[in-house]
């Protein structure tokens, strides 16, 4: 309690309330540019924080992190390209909403859901960190593998029109994830002798290629003379979220935030997986799953609350165990060290005051995010008014610059082009891109941990069923696939009966 009050005192300095909006603005901007991630934003701003006191420095970086995770939804909604991998699930309903002319509504919901998710996550960090950390330690290779399988089961939910195309997509993704040096045996796979491919294909590079480049190519059928719709500036922001829509989204946001906290607290997973699982669970428990994917506001609410719900929670294993939850927290951990705080089990004892200030500050960050986001969405919504022939050129430039800046090499630009061309043809054949992305994201997690688990169990597969957490995930995964199969079957039967009559 004493530390809590001490933390409150540190937080109450006026400088903190200036630096948080600045961090958020930077975060939202880098998050909204495909190819620039909050990771990069944090790295670039670390040197700026050298002169600050630790609380202020970390709060600024956290604001970039949270802002970036929210900001990625803006491009996902407006131009069908997730700004960061955490926002990929927002595509499903966010972009269809834009197509229907409800972009502002989708942006507003993304912001609202992100804020609530972020707040719940910050509260979980504040009150439950030590307890959650203990559970995290129970996660061994078997549990991670089971979690990845559970994540892959989402494919059943997101490709219900053609499960086979979904599975083929996931296999393509899994295949892409095998490129590079295999960490367990040390052999190189599918690199064709090229050293450049040895570290595999960067997730962000694959993301730009798959989504952004292919999206621009898909628009090659666009004819500016007839297809461009003129939208009046005043009409864009008129369409606000109704009370009924807020009410409907209560459940998806609660579910999304909860899943976000749980997945976020598991090191090595991150907001992207949380968003997919939350989206899938919301769709499953919905009374009208058929509207998902057609511009359902609940879908945006679920995925955006989940990825920001993961934001604060990724800090739990970092602060208590010294294990970063994802890429951005790994960099944040470096920032903690620079400011004299070595994350790990003794940090709370040694620097409790500052930690409480930071955790309380995270709540402030989320409140500010709502305010700043509201200002930004008003401007961003007008992006839909830019003629596509101009927007495409801008997006392409950003994509290429982003791809280059990831590793400072031209090679990655060729990779995004190859990915873009392949994705274009897959989309023309009615393949969904998300199963491919799931394969790329979860493939390494599943494969590495499967093999680690088998080393530990001396080759016995029993390890996945005898360990309770692992067994539970596998059962949920099977149950969730079975539920979808049953629903699809019922829907088909109903269709047949309707046809017979």
């Amino acid at each position, binding site marked *: 309690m004493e530390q809590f009050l001490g933390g409150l005192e540190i937080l109450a300095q006026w400088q903190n309330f200036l630096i948080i909006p600045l961090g958020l603005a930077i975060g939202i901007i880098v998050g909204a540019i495909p190819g620039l991630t909050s990771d990069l934003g944090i790295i670039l701003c*670390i040197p700026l924080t050298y002169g600050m006191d630790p609380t202020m420095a970390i709060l600024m970086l956290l604001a970039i992190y949270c802002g970036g995770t929210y900001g990625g939804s803006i491009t996902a909604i407006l131009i069908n390209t997730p700004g960061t991998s955490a926002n990929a699930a927002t595509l499903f309903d966010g972009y269809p909403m834009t197509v229907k002319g409800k972009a502002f509504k989708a942006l507003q919901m993304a912001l609202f859901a992100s804020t609530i998710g972020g707040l719940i996550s910050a509260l979980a960090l504040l009150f439950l960190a030590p307890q959650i950390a203990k559970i995290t330690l*129970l996660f061994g290779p078997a549990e991670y593998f089971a979690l990845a399988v559970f994540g892959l089961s989402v494919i059943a939910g997101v490709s219900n029109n053609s499960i086979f195309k979904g599975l083929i997509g996931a296999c393509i993704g899994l295949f892409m994830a095998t490129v590079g*040096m*295999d960490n367990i045996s040390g052999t190189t796979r599918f690199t064709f002798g090229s050293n450049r491919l*040895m570290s595999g294909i960067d997730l962000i590079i694959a993301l730009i290629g798959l989504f952004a480049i292919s999206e621009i190519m898909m628009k*090659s059928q666009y004819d500016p003379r007839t297809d461009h719709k003129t939208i009046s500036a005043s009409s864009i922001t008129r369409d606000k979220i109704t009370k009924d829509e807020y009410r409907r989204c209560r459940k998806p946001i609660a579910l999304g935030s909860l899943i976000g906290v749980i997945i976020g607290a598991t090191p090595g997973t991150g907001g992207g997986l949380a968003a997919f699982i939350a989206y899938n669970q919301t769709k499953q428990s919905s009374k009208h799953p058929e509207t998902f994917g057609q511009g359902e506001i609940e879908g945006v609410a679920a995925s955006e609350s989940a990825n920001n719900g993961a934001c604060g929670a990724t800090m739990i294993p970092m602060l208590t165990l010294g294990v970063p939850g994802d890429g951005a927290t790994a960099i944040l951990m470096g920032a903690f060290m620079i400011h004299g705080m070595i994350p790990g089990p003794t*940090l709370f004892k040694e620097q409790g005051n500052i930690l409480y200030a930071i955790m309380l500050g995270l709540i402030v960050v989320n409140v500010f995010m709502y305010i700043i986001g509201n200002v930004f969405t008003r401007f961003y919504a007008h992006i839909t008014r830019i003629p596509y022939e101009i927007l495409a050129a801008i997006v392409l430039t950003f994509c290429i610059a982003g791809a280059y800046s990831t590793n400072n090499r031209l090679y990655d630009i060729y990779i995004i082009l190859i990915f873009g061309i392949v994705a274009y043809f897959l989309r023309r054949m009615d393949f969904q891109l998300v199963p491919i992305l799931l394969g790329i994201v979860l493939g390494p997690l599943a494969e590495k941990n499967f093999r680690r688990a088998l080393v530990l169990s001396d080759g016995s597969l029993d390890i996945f069923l005898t360990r309770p957490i692992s067994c539970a995930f596998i059962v949920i995964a099977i149950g969730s696939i079975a539920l979808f199969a049953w629903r699809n079957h019922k829907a088909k039967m109903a269709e047949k009966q309707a046809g017979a009559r």
Partner: protein
Amino acid sequence: MKKFLSLALTLLMVLSLAACGGSDPKTPAADGGKEPAADSFPEKQITIIMPWSLGGGPDTIARQVASYGEKILGVPVIVENHTGGAGTIAMNDALQAEDDGYTMVVANGPLFSLTPSFVNVNYTLDDITPLIGMRITEFVILTNSKSNITNIEELKAYAEEGNTIKYATTGGPGNDSYTMISVLFKLLDIPSEAVPYDGGQEAINALVGGHVDVAIGSPPTYRDYVINGELNCLGTFIPEGLDVEGIGHIPSFKEQGVDVDFTGMDYFAVRSSVDDAKKEVLTNFIKEVYADAEFQEFMAGMGMKAWESTESEILDMVNAQSEAMSKYIPLVQ
């Protein structure tokens, strides 16, 4: 037809944009081909090529050093991460850059002593000149204190009970931690199997969670756990042992009768064909940074100390390491 035309145009645009990126402004300023005098060096931005990823130990230190560029050299110093290929990509890029002194690279021992055994490389130690050391990495072998194994003898006894020791490494084959811990178990001649993880924290976490029997770590990842009493140190590869604040002396494996030693090191280097006077300017720059009180405070905050060693010391260490590795690698391949 129109569709295909516009598709083709899109592609053309993409390709031309990609091609534009090819003309890197690396060509030196045209000053009549005359080598600029060293006393005017440096006149433009200096790049440090970093083989390892953003936010890691060497990257953080290099970025901190680079932040002093404007103050000490009067030009910006930037860090570029050229990751991949177990560090060989960065080495190739550094050796392909102009030898005008405007490109530095961060290298380590295993790039020369270990990596060539696993990856085709087209560089040798003769291609670079180490300028000054950066840091020393001390690998320590740890167990979970619940296992009651506190030294090598107890580990052997545990293995003799019929247990295969499962050990967590911070990377796969070709990685220095993987090689060294595998060599240790080969020399101890006890049944064991590696479980490669990605990075030091993951390996330590697997040990703390009780998923593996043994893990390899370097400071500061394990320090708190040892002080807390959750982990035990069995020994270190540093031949003279290691003194860690709060833990005390960690004995070396040499002291415990196992003939294996390894000292990890990172250092700044340039192409060996760079002008000697320029090498000196760069070395003095980093030396000056190391002497800065703020920089020292920064390093202390990270639980590290700058390793201010000279060119010949680094070369001797890399050569000794290469020789040792030529004995070790056949043991684990």
